[in-house]
């Protein structure tokens, strides 16, 4: 891909969750993620898309050590500190928290109604003991609040006084106050109205440039991802099916699933020709994923081999990778 060193480097990652309990022996396992190999370059706005149940949230959480790493490795290296996320000690984990943070989806649920905005933003500094005095904490809070375009007079108020867009700016300030280098934004604009969403997206992009951050931007909304991300990874049922520079992915999708996903987006043009690619059926249960290529049960181009052999990511040119046995045979969309 690019020559920029990766901030996160994932090799053959698997995340398993137990499905209930068994009286004897280990319970059956749900493989939420399988065979994930991925590099996230430093300074990038990296998009992760997929339908519900595709494992995109699990992947974001695994990188933050909020999901179990069952197999494989996740390396984090931002130049100033490096961690091996699967095996790090509790002490390292505490240090890691200052480097990697999460912005949640729902700004109404993510803020305590009983804390002032100042206390909400200051909490990470206090928990991680990053500041020596109250004055220093206040200074850091005011600095990040200004960067997130929050009115400093608002710091004394409680969250209920704010609209969705303002609340999301408060949660962004809280995530950034500890000075992280890597931020996971999980559906961070999904709960916002269109007129506000653009404002938050523009803010995240300018913060990336100003504070030299790397974003992992998780979303089900492909048009949003197309506009803000440099590189996009597409997931289906716990596997990566395609990774490519954003422009390439949206103009020349290679994987049949990416093509179908793009053609399912309702066009703003009322006279747009009805897309030929409607996916039949629904996503199979991740507890019993289909053998071979997990997409073969819904794929319009599936052949016998697809049900038997799992396709691996291979280079598809122009800095992209695709996991499909027959992508070369399929005409560009």
């Amino acid at each position, binding site marked *: 891909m690019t020559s920029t060193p990766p901030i996160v480097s994932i090799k053959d990652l698997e995340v398993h969750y137990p499905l209930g309990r068994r009286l004897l022996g280990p319970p059956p396992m749900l493989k939420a993620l399988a065979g994930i190999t991925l590099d996230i370059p430093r300074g990038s706005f990296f998009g992760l898309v997929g339908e519900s149940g595709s494992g995109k949230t699990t992947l974001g959480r695994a990188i933050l050590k909020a999901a179990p790493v069952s197999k494989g490795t996740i390396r984090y290296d931002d130049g100033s500190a490096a961690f091996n996320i699967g095996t790090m000690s509790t002490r390292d984990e505490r240090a890691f928290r200052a480097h990697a943070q999460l912005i949640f989806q729902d700004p109404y649920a993510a803020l305590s109604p009983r804390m002032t905005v100042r206390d909400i933003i200051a909490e990470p500094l206090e928990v991680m003991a990053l500041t020596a005095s109250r004055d220093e904490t206040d200074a850091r809070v005011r600095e990040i609040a200004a960067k997130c375009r929050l009115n400093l007079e608002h710091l004394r108020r409680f969250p209920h006084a704010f*609209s969705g*867009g303002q609340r999301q700016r408060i949660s962004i300030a809280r995530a950034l106050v500890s000075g992280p280098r890597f931020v996971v934004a999980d559906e961070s604009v999904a709960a916002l*109205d269109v007129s506000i*969403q653009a404002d938050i*997206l523009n803010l995240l992009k300018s913060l990336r440039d100003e504070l030299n951050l790397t974003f992992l931007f998780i979303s*089900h909304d492909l048009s949003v991802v197309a506009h803000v991300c440099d590189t996009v990874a597409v997931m289906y049922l716990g596997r990566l099916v395609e990774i490519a520079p954003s422009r390439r992915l949206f103009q020349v999708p290679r994987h049949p699933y990416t093509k179908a996903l793009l053609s399912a987006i309702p066009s*703003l043009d009322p006279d747009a020709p009805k897309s030929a690619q409607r996916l039949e059926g629904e996503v199979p249960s991740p507890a019993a994923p289909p053998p071979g290529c997990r997409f073969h049960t819904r794929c319009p181009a599936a052949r016998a081999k697809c049900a038997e052999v799992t396709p691996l990511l291979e280079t598809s040119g122009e800095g992209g990778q695709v996991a499909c046995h027959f992508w070369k045979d399929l005409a560009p969309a």
Partner: protein
Amino acid sequence: MSLVDVQNLTIRFETDEGLITAVEDVSFHIAPGEILGLVGESGSGKSVTAKSLMQLNGGNTVYDPASRIALNAPGSDPLEVLSLTQERDMGPIRGGAISMIFQEPMASFAPAIPVGKQMVEQLQIHTDLSKAAARDLSIEMLDRVGISEAAQRFDQYVFEFSGGMRQRAMIAMALSTKPKLLIADEPTTALDVTIQAQVIDLMKDLVAEFGMGILFITHDLGVIAQTADRVAVMYLGKLVETGTVRDVIRAPAHPYTQGLLNALPKLDDLDAPLVPVPGDIPGPLERPEGCVFHTRCAHAIPGLCARKTPLPTPQGPGHEASCHALEGNQGLLVRGPL
């Protein structure tokens, strides 16, 4: 003749903090076989408007005396919905002449009763069908909306259905009484895009087949562009613009409609900057005087927009927008890029 004709609908709610205006002076009509899209952000009053068609709003609702909702279902007498005061008079409307599809199908089915039994129950209330005939019709409808092995599915519970299947089952249930008007309140918002595309196709097929009118509520302009014939744009309880989907999306007249379209990320133009609508939506207790949009409007005329409520002005055949800057064809507004 319109199927439903809403005139000067104003809805207020009595709350501890005072009377809150949710919908103000809204007028629209829907013809049989027509899909009217109602677009707006959260809190704009879309759902309250829709629920008023069946008087489903809560007990603290106050309808303005000038409000009229005329329902002209073919084959039955014209009806003034707001003049009905008895719950039993509402029966033939709710689920009979008008059916509703909700956003979250999991919350709309009873969890402990098989899906089929719920379908039969409402058919027995609204039709003269025997239990066996209602069962046959329900299975036929489930099959019709693309649920495979409908006879087995009939006896299952809603938790055994996937998200897309639940929404299909709700559509089947809503259509089984052959309503004249279908209200679809964000019917695809909780679904993944590939399933959303299937459900939209299905709804369009069914309208063509049954010839009912649909009030389609959504915040997604793309979904509207692909489903509706006409569209009404709502902001803070007011209709700011109405017209055919082509006119409103290609030549938006009202600054709010233009703002919404400019804020939307477009896949066919990745270089276009995302332009947010400035400011925040005012809270329900801070409803602006004059034009409700003036606090966020770049074209607001000082001294006028904050004082006087703009009236709908024709922008073309069947295309109206309520904005002072558009009155008298002053041409003050730069049209949107679409």
